[in-house]
């Protein structure tokens, strides 16, 4: 019933790569072993294209394109280290960090992307998410609202991976955040405690209650992230 699999060939950073038709530029870059920074991307979810950290150069394109949502065309020439794309990625990550009252823990995806891009302490001090104690009303899942970067991965994990639709984005600006149900917390919402949200979260805004203590201990031994 299904047609034979078709492939397209693109060039990533000078090397040819064959990928299935319908693959994205990000798929091709990963197949080629090239690193592309991402924040809102999770391979278990449909590409979202919100964070703009994954901009890459495509020959003939007027501006860098988001790798996660751009489909490969046969013969496409891709530069994952396009200077303009990287400048944007750097600025995006720096802006995201500037909104947090404290740097993300070293093991988090955000910290690792920042480190790899060479983003240090943000140059824009000022308003941040209001620091708040962790919400640990659930036996396993903890909210640290101050660390939310509104990437939407937890919401999509709940929708697209688990299918429980318990999480939702709320608020605007510095109040932008995530709520379980009508903000009644994980325990009293429709949450089934599958943990897919915590697994996807790139900042530990949603994490495991039992890991909260470990995270601070580990960061203390490392002298904490920059």
């Amino acid at each position: 019933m299904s047609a034979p699999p078709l492939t397209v060939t693109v060039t990533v950073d000078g090397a040819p790569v064959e990928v299935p038709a319908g693959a994205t530029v990000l798929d091709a870059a990963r197949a080629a072993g090239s690193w592309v920074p991402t924040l809102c991307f999770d391979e278990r979810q449909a590409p979202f294209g919100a964070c703009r950290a994954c901009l890459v150069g495509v020959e003939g394109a007027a501006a860098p394109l988001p790798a996660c949502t751009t489909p490969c065309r046969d013969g496409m020439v891709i530069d994952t280290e396009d200077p303009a794309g990287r400048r944007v990625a750097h600025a995006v990550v720096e802006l995201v960090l500037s909104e947090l009252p404290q740097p993300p823990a070293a093991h988090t995806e955000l910290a690792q992307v920042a480190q790899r891009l060479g983003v240090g302490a943000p140059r824009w001090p000022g308003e941040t998410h209001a620091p708040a104690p962790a919400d640990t009303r659930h036996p396993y899942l903890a909210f640290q609202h101050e660390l939310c970067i509104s990437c939407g991965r937890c919401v999509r994990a709940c929708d697209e991976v688990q299918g429980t639709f318990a999480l939702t984005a709320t608020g605007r600006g510095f109040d932008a955040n995530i709520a379980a149900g009508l903000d009644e917390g994980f325990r009293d919402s429709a949450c089934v405690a599958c943990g897919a949200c915590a697994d996807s979260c790139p900042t530990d805004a949603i994490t495991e209650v039992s890991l909260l203590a470990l995270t601070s201990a580990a960061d203390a031994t490392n002298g904490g992230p920059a």
Partner: protein
Amino acid sequence: MSDERFASTVTTTCGYCGVGCRLEAHVRDDRVASISPALDGPANEGHTCLKGRFAHQFSRRRDRLATPLIRDARGGELRRASWEEALERIASELGRIRAAHGPDAIAGLASSRATNEDCYAMQRLMRAAIGTNNIDNCSRVCHSPTSYALRRSLGLSGATGSFADFDHADATILIGANPTEGHPVVGARIKQATLRGMKLVTIDPRRIELADYGVLHLAPRPGTNAAIMLGIAHVLERDGFVNRAFIDERTDGWDAFAELLPAYAPEAVARIAAVPAADLERAAHVYGEAADACISWGLGVTEHKYGSEVAQLICDVALMTGKIGRPGSALLPLRGQNNVQGSSDMGALPDTYTAYRSVTDEAVARSFEDAWGVPLSRREGWTIPQMFDAAVAGELRAMYIFGEDVAQTDPNTAHVVHAMESLDFLVVQEIFENETTKYADVILPASSFLEKGGTFTNAERRVQLVAPAIDPPGEARTDFEIIALVSRALGHELPWATPADAMDEIAVLTPDWAGISHARLGRRGLQWPVAPDGTDAPILYEREFSRPGGRAHFAALPYKAPGDAADEQFPLILVTGRRLQHYNAGTMTRRTGNVELMDADVLEIHPDDAARLWISNGDRISVRSRVGRIELPAQVTDHIEPGHVFTTFHFPETRTNLLIGASADVNTSCPEYKVVAVDVRPLGEEPARTPALASGT
């Protein structure tokens, strides 16, 4: 990606349900600090559930069994013992009983929670060291009817495809299963498939969560699944969905089956099953009109008096439409426990060696005699229920039970306890004291799935590696080591240093497993049958069935009434099952944060029944069956039909299985957990003061 929070990370396979999620277990300070899903797990694709991800703290609970325990006299106090003393006691007692009463006075239970290698070792111990085929495992009380049916109808005892078939199916019939609670990761997968457009028909006495994602929900009377499947077959035949070419080329027995169908017109089935005739027609059309469709089922099909017959009728429906043996068209039984498939595959059954080859088959028996160097019995052993009967009758004198809490989970609890008390000697190998260890003379401290190596086989026939993340606590040992120690004490040396060595022996002695070795399984496992060159089988029966002549068999089986029925005295029908937060006897999950999310069994009852019986939500109520009585809180909900009630058996203080009688599947003796007539009333109301009311259906 290194993570500064953890000392090590081990990829293993989940030890809860039969989905077989691949997990990353992160360890710190010799305990599991966190578990996350393996992104490349073929069954879970980077997902897992409340149990697999979070319910691991039981592994370091202080009440873990950490030394052998002995009772000097039956009914006496337990005291700590050394391994040497425990093994010596086992060897002398079992030796004495065998000498006095023969090897068939001893029986063993392997565990569907344990690895393939553990189960293989256990059946070898019973057969070679003791000399009996009295070996069974807990698949007896869950999916033995599925195994029986698939073998009779199609040839092999396993799902015909993989969970990935849900992603390719245009429609699915889900009957007698509640996967968003029992198999949550498959539940999520089915849900996602429906959101992409797969048409789902759910058939269950309760309005399960997935019913809201389907195109149609049928709520039949418990025990009438056979009528439902025959009714669907009737409509498929009547409305031209029969695949004649497939029937002619690849099956036999169609004519006899077709002769049954005129009696199951939708109106007739509606009378038997209390399902609207139009819904039955629509269900058949959803399945018939789909280019590719799956049928998936759980214990709501099997745990009935005629469960094995219903499973055969499910095969009939797939065969008559030719919807089998290709991507998106599969029969996918949702096997209950993590290794319920493998424990049976391994020959931990009273009638078969590995891969379901009969103990009476001379050539097969000889191959095992040659390998093990001992003569083997050709006499089939007892099933679990038969063992209990034999114990009460004085024919069975000793049992060696590992990884099954029979006194909480098996039906007819009072009878099970009587059996335990009747034994001269009982060895229990466990991770915690439980209801069954109360009757043990020797308790051996064993290991959980986080502490052992080997393989589990999931509901897709996928054999996957299990790797130890942490050490067993104290003096506890892995089940594999313990069984080897006991076997040696009994005079039969198991010649393997590691579980991988045992798998090599399994591969040599089992054609369908010939290509399996631990080295070859890798991160994604292999789906048996596996050819010597390592080629596995995600889809069975693409060209031919594994039966004589390569042809599948239509079973012509009429509907028969279940073993129990509502009457004046017991007007409601009780169905038992499971909830998301807990796992079966709850031995593990009750020792985790999951109890904060659910801390008691409750009885679901329809608002109409509740109002009639003067029961309010949360009231403690009495539930009485023909064999027993329990008390628990009521939960008033319209997720259940009037006339039916539902509860779980997760908490020992409830002892739900006191209510379950001796009725069992006619072919496999799988207990009829799903149809029990009960009387429900507020606590303290004597039956004489509140005459039972006829049920509303």
